[in-house]
């Protein structure tokens, strides 16, 4: 994982922006921590987006079903009490906007990044797994009584071909 503070700050900024502007909700971020577990609560909903470029990784947004319903209710100005198409779509879009905001900030020091199409999973007693032993940075948030987490796993893309780069950061002529 690269400089953790940069990553955490970018995630906080992106998350606060989405919740304040789109939901009219103030969020508070807690103390970040690291773990080697894969993302996802055992129960609830999780939105996942992959990052690819000079660095590769995954960002996840996870919360309980009730929090997802509450967020969707605020987002769409209607009452939602159970997981359905609207809630899945809302969580997908929230994940997309958070990661999009993170990408904009992170590209200033990570270089260009591409985003995968968001995936949203909802279920009971599920587990998720990624290959490898990369460290995850977990940023917890609270929003009133609601809690959710943003997790990120980011590592240098070792699969990229190595081209000579000159001092200005441009590819050098061969």
């Amino acid at each position: 994982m690269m400089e953790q503070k940069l990553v955490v700050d970018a995630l906080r900024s992106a998350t606060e922006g989405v919740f304040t502007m789109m939901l009219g909700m103030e969020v508070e971020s807690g103390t970040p921590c690291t773990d080697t577990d894969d993302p996802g609560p055992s129960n609830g909903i999780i939105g996942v987006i992959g990052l690819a470029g000079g660095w590769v990784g995954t960002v996840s947004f996870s919360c309980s079903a009730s929090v997802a319903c509450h967020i969707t209710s605020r987002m769409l100005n209607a009452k939602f009490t159970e997981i359905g198409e609207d809630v899945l779509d809302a969580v997908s879009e929230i994940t997309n906007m958070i990661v999009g905001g993170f990408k904009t900030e992170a590209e200033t020091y990570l270089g260009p990044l591409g985003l995968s199409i968001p995936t949203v999973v909802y279920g009971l007693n599920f587990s998720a797994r990624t290959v490898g032993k990369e460290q995850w940075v977990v940023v917890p948030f609270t929003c009133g009584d609601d809690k959710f987490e943003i997790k990120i796993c980011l590592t240098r893309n070792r699969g990229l071909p190595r081209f000579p780069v000159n001092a200005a950061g441009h590819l050098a002529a061969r």
Partner: protein
Amino acid sequence: MAVDVLIVDDSAAIRKILQRMLGQSGFPLGKVLEAGDGVEALEKMKSHSVNLVLSDINMPNMDGIQLLSELKASADYRHVPVIMITTEGGEAKVMEAVQLGAAGYVRKPFTADQIKEKLSGLF
């Protein structure tokens, strides 16, 4: 004058939010049409008169950039202002949209005031 708007986004949530924000902003909102991608948007425009298009960039089937190209290449639609709504922070896509004739762009997340400001000079 009431402005008939076509909102194009593959997220139903974003379409609903945009519609709500347009209503809240004091914008003279007329009829609102929705489409989930560029292909559906073009179909809707064939059968409905539209004064404004708000379009996401990243969508399946036909993305917002291609939709914008199609509209600006059409004698029937090139006069319709198109505002791009994007999560992409990358300047390249935004610049491409502006060069193709987009009337402006808004980055997600956005507020009702930002939407109103973008539309204030158009109508």
